[in-house]
């Protein structure tokens, strides 16, 4: 235990060899979250409408105001304009075509997602008018949302970035420092020192765990301060992250040992961190996207982690179809990668050919 303690102290001191790298790896995801939470998609859209000249145009403007969430924000912010050209976005003009009042929506060079959003909002507004005309024949939709209120997207986005923060810190610093051992030649002392390689690896992984948890807690605190939503159990959050950080640490250490160069190992850590984040339910629960996406997403360790974190942020609601399966998957990845990192260490660092 004393040897392990000394090794850990020595590992922690390595912070001094690359303080800027550590600070960047720990702070960057939080900074990214702060900036992205400002531009995060919000349900309220500006809709440019040409000042109506027809009487029914005023009814349309009144209908526009009705489109929104009864437990959240309005979905349309009308912007009255005089110019009927769409510019870079869109414009709605109320006119008569073949004698029939018509809302003509002209689009600029925009993408299908924006068209969809603008079309849906226009349809919803016109449906308000249609329902008024239908009177008692119009169909009412009684809404029963899953949660008592619509949760801002920033909450999910931040929750899904917690694993990214942990992964980036563990994999990047792990890979970078390991590669540095090769670049500076200190790797030779590992081969020569009379300590079990398992103890050395355990010390390295433990210090990466501390660093990654620091990064994750920093992001978690920022998420809470920005949204006011906190996990119902802080301890559970940390426990869920532990196997995930072990996975990230192993990937980083393996990258450092295999490439033996700081830049490529950084590249591997960076690419895998962002790919895992994006594919691993970073933008929404995997089940909410296409079936192909969901299948691939379930192979990524981030997805079970996010599904495990979910109940602690969302009123205890469970979203994992197979909670035990998710835990086993994570445990399987962790054990497999720990074994691989030991094998790689033996074959690269302790190899007699070196």
């Amino acid at each position, binding site marked *: 235990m004393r040897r392990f303690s000394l090794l850990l102290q020595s590992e922690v001191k390595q912070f001094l060899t690359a303080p800027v790298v550590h600070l960047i790896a720990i702070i960057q995801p939080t900074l990214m979250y702060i900036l992205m939470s400002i531009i995060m998609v*919000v349900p309220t859209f500006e809709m440019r409408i040409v000042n109506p000249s027809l009487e029914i145009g005023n009814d349309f403007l009144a209908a526009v105001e009705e489109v929104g969430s009864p437990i959240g924000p309005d979905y349309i912010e009308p912007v009255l304009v005089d110019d009927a050209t769409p510019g870079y976005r869109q414009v709605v003009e109320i006119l008569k075509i073949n004698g029939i009042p018509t809302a003509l929506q002209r689009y600029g060079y925009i993408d299908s997602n924006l068209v969809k959003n603008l079309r849906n909002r226009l349809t919803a507004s016109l449906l308000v008018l249609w329902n008024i005309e239908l009177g*008692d024949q119009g*169909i009412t939709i009684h809404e029963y949302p*899953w*949660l008592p209120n619509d949760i801002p*997207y920033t909450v999910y986005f931040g929750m899904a970035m917690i694993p990214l923060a942990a992964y980036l810190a563990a994999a990047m610093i792990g890979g970078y420092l390991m590669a540095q051992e090769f670049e500076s030649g200190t790797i030779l002392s590992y081969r020569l020192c009379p300590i079990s390689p398992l103890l050395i690896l355990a010390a390295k992984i433990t210090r990466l765990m501390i660093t990654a948890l620091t990064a994750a807690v920093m992001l978690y605190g920022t998420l809470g301060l920005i949204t006011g939503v906190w996990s119902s159990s802080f301890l559970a959050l940390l426990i869920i992250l532990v196997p995930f950080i072990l996975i990230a640490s192993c990937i980083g250490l393996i990258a450092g040992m295999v490439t033996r160069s700081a830049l490529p190992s950084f590249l591997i850590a960076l690419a895998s961190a962002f790919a895992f984040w994006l594919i691993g339910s970073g933008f929404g629960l995997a089940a909410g996207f296409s079936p192909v996406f969901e299948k691939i997403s379930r192979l990524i360790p981030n997805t079970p982690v996010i599904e495990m974190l979910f109940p602690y942020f969302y009123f205890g609601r469970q979203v994992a*179809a197979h909670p035990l399966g998710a835990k086993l998957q994570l445990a399987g990845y962790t054990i497999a990668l720990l074994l691989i990192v030991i094998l790689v260490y033996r074959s690269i660092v302790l190899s007699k050919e070196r």
Partner: protein
Amino acid sequence: MRRLWILIKTEFNVWKKEPITALGGIIPCLFILIAFALLFGGRLSFPIAVINNDQGQYGQVLIDTFEKAISPLDNQPYYEVKSFSENQAWKAFEEYRIEGIWIIPEDFSERITSKNNPSIDMHFMNYNDDRAKNHRIYSAEILWAFYQEIGFSGPPMEMTEQYPLPEMVDWVSIISIGIVLLSVTLGGIFNMFILTYKAQMGKITLEIGLSPRSLAWVLVPKTFLATFFGLVTGTIFLVIIRVWLGFWPGGYIGTVWLITGLVAVFWIQVGLVSGLIAKNYMAGAIGSVLGAMIVFFIGGGLSMVRAYQDAVTWIAWLFPNTYAVDPIRDLVLFNTWPMDFEPVVLKLVGFAVFAVILGSLFSIRKLRKLA
């Protein structure tokens, strides 16, 4: 000129020893493109269950309508109705295997016929407000189509649309151009790093600092090569997009190189300076690359800056990417000349000149100090 050529060749020989770095602009970007294509490129219909208790015909008509209301996002229906029994449906909803459940009451048809306030119950996910919004506005599309289907008297106001192209450009394509710009940026940064990193590792920075000639002779070839390789990276990515998504700038390729090249020059200088400030080139590399990734996300990488101008944070306007990304989309996706081409190029030239002056002054001072 001959001296410059020799220096460029020397730098190129240095670069050749670690060509894997050239992949720095390709590998992360390719991963990001694949990830976004998986996210938004497949069928995006909301899976739901419909419990039809209706005793009349309209309940089934409503179910059939779900298939007919088509989203422009992916040309698929907004909703995909799953065949579940009532118990299965509730279980699937609780486990988030479906997005919602519509319950059609038994007197639905009767109330429509007798004009007696027909209604439907809609249970739906609202774990994020954007999806909740989609449920509410998609349901309007369904009702609109249903009213037409069952022959209600026409709406008081019809709806029509005009799109400037025969086909809509999809969201993944919009994101892919953001990634092209990111690949040029990362390509430039990574290649600058490898050139200067080698100089640091080889400990020739002292000799550089002692050089009796202007240090521009050292910095210009590095900047030139890094920009060139950044553009090569971006062009490789454009070819990937041509093969995958079918978009190509055609005759506008030179203009795309001009715009992306100016952005790359800015970032190359940022990389150079941050590396020297950090006194550790890797720290500079990591900081600049992650910085470029953040700028990709906040500076129009995922959506058009022009369409969401008000939402763009002021920090994003401090970087050239935010100005450059939409004109590149005009050239590549829409094959049109950007209306704001001249002001954008002037701004980009301003960014590049400013970065080169500041970067060179700082680097020269730092290198001379070392000596």
